[in-house]
């Protein structure tokens, strides 16, 4: 025992506790995406191994991710070479990012909408689009026999989804529809990009309209036949695999585990449609370079590498996030990519498709914007408060945020002059 301790202590002090950066010039890729162990591993082994230099890929929770970046910016020097995050994360730190418009993308045809999003309302290219995803529905094949008569699973309506969930609950004895309403669940995106566009053809302007009242009433009906454990769910792949639920809504990356593990047991299908179309929300992640990056040349080379068509395909395999450039997908894709890819194509290609974009121009008010929808959900659905009263109340908060951010409307709301109005 004692010799063990002594040798350890001796080793400790000779090991050079003060050693700072000792290893060779590695580019630090400070990412908020591709965090799950398997994805991080694939990013290192498959995606970044093809880059000419050494890359240290470090995925983080949003707290440490942002704090470290802020500290480096404030200190004026840093180690982070490249940032990887969602569009919404960059909106708060636009001032700390370098302009990427001088990067030569070669023949790569980048999605123009996403390139425009990457300017973050400035006249500089603050981030380059990196990858995209969206939210779809997933179902265990056992659930399909309970589909309402005449319903096509690839083109459901909200009423049919409710009827379906009700039948499943009655036939199996427990609610089989699951919704990611846990603390880390992405419920707010469902209300912003799916429920509202489907019922009001709006995300912001008609927040408190009569149509919105209907939308929340419909959602309450759905909630009545939803698994009550939903308030604890975050990534629905878990409950799908354990068969706690049979049908679920979630981000494609958070369903991928189920599709990959048991590809024959699950299907993916488009989100349901309401009176004003089939609302859905594309999600875009980007890569950017902070002003404090130690090796600007290397960082820019890495950012350009991430947008290569071949890198984009490897990224898709690693993370289940889809390319943002024009690229032909090879046939040997993992099951999750094939399954959700088909659902996404059906959803975005549907005649009644009604895409709702991620919030634009909110800056650091993005979190408060999401909170408006989460609060509405908690008060109306969980708290059972009066729909009209809650919407009027929350609309004031939404109006304040839009005015403070001075953000014009984005799709599906019609473009506005000045801040997006909340009627």
């Amino acid at each position, binding site marked *: *025992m004692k010799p*063990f301790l002594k040798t*350890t*202590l001796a080793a*400790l002090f000779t*090991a050079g*506790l*003060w*050693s*700072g*950066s*000792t*290893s060779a010039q590695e580019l*630090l890729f400070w990412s908020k995406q591709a*965090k*799950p*162990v*398997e994805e*991080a*591993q694939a990013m*290192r*082994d498959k995606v970044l191994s093809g880059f000419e230099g050494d890359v*240290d890929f*470090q*995925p*983080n*929770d949003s*707290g*440490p991710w942002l*704090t*470290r970046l*802020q*500290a*480096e910016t*404030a*200190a004026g*020097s*840093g*180690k982070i070479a490249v940032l990887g995050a969602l569009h919404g994360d960059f909106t708060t730190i636009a001032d700390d990012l370098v302009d990427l418009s001088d990067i030569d993308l070669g023949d790569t045809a980048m999605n123009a909408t996403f390139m425009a999003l990457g300017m973050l309302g400035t006249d500089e290219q603050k981030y380059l689009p990196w990858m995209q995803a969206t939210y779809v529905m997933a179902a265990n094949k056992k659930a399909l026999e309970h589909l309402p008569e005449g319903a096509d699973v690839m083109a459901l309506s909200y009423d049919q989804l409710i009827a379906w969930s009700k039948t499943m609950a009655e036939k199996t004895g427990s609610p089989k529809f699951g919704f990611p309403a846990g603390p*880390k669940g992405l419920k707010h995106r469902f209300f912003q990009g799916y429920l509202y566009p489907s019922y009001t053809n709006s995300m912001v302007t008609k927040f408190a309209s009569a149509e919105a009242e209907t939308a929340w009433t419909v959602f309450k009906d759905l909630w009545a036949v939803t698994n009550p454990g939903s308030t604890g769910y*975050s*990534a629905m*792949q*878990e409950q799908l*695999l*354990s068969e706690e639920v049979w049908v679920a809504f979630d981000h494609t990356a*958070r369903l991928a*585990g189920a599709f990959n*593990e*048991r590809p024959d047991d699950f299907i993916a299908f488009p989100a349901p449609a309401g009176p004003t179309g089939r609302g859905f929300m594309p999600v875009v992640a980007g890569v950017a370079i902070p002003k404090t990056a130690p090796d600007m040349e290397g960082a820019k080379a890495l950012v350009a590498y991430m947008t290569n068509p071949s890198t984009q395909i490897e990224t898709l395999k690693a993370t289940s996030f889809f390319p943002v450039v024009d690229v032909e997908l090879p046939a040997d894709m993992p099951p999750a990519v094939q399954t959700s890819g088909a659902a996404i194509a059906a959803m975005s290609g549907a005649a009644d498709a009604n895409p709702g974009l991620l919030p634009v121009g909110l800056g650091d008010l993005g979190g408060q914007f999401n909170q408006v929808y989460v609060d509405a959900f908690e008060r109306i659905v969980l708290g059972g408060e009066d729909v009209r009263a809650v919407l009027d109340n929350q609309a004031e908060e939404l109006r304040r945020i839009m005015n403070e951010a001075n953000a014009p409307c984005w799709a599906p709301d019609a473009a506005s002059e000045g801040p997006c109005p909340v009627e």
Partner: protein
Amino acid sequence: MSTAGGRVAGNDRLAHWVFIATTVVLCGWVLVPIWLLISNTLSTASEVNSFPKPVVPSLNTENIQFFLTFHGAGNALWNSIQVAFATMIMAISVGAPAGYALSRFDFRGKNAFRVLVLMTRAFPLPLLALPMAILFIRVGLDDTVIGLAIVHTTLALPFAVLITFSLFSGIPIELEEAAWTLGCNRLQAFRKVILPLVLPGLAASAIFAFVISWNEVFAAAVLTIEHRTLPAFLLQSLDDAPLHLKFAGGTMLVLPALIFIFLVRKYLFAMWGIANR
């Protein structure tokens, strides 16, 4: 008809059973979660998600292998050990003198000091991390083992001070005075008489410091990059990982700490007055 003697015997038997039941419950309290963790680690992905689970896992090593080949995990483990030991040493070498002073001397602001020591735990780390990281980058402590150990020492210090304070208070001052009359100076008296008596307690509070450092994630994630500790390296990645890898990763995090506690258990038991030598 029961005699007085019979009643006593019955009570004895009852006490015996209560003792056994309590022991079983306490052991289960500790062992069942560890068993679940390890048996799920050694199961295949489909077994982890199925219910009911097989009693004996299939001894599948795929999950373990994933982490053994996980880029940087070994390095992170070594960093964790270094930080935890440095924290342990610093927390005791600063905390024990403070505890001794609190128990032996009267000085102005003694009570205020005791409260102030606790105050370091009143501010959440996410709040402190930003200014601290800026400072560390400026003075060159950023991304060093010693820098992170300093932060963890501040977290562990209140416990080190308060535990050692009660340790020293439990030893009569007369023992020290006797040593002085026999020719020891203050330092010698401390080293030859007091230290051997409090050593087990010191070891226990050192283990406490070790565990605090081992479990800390936020500061480690912000303040280190190349010298990332195991929890900072793994914990964030386990959050969204599939269930079977969560279990395997959990085992990876728990096992080294378990081994350490096992190695030093002698000192722990000694503190609670159980001879185990």
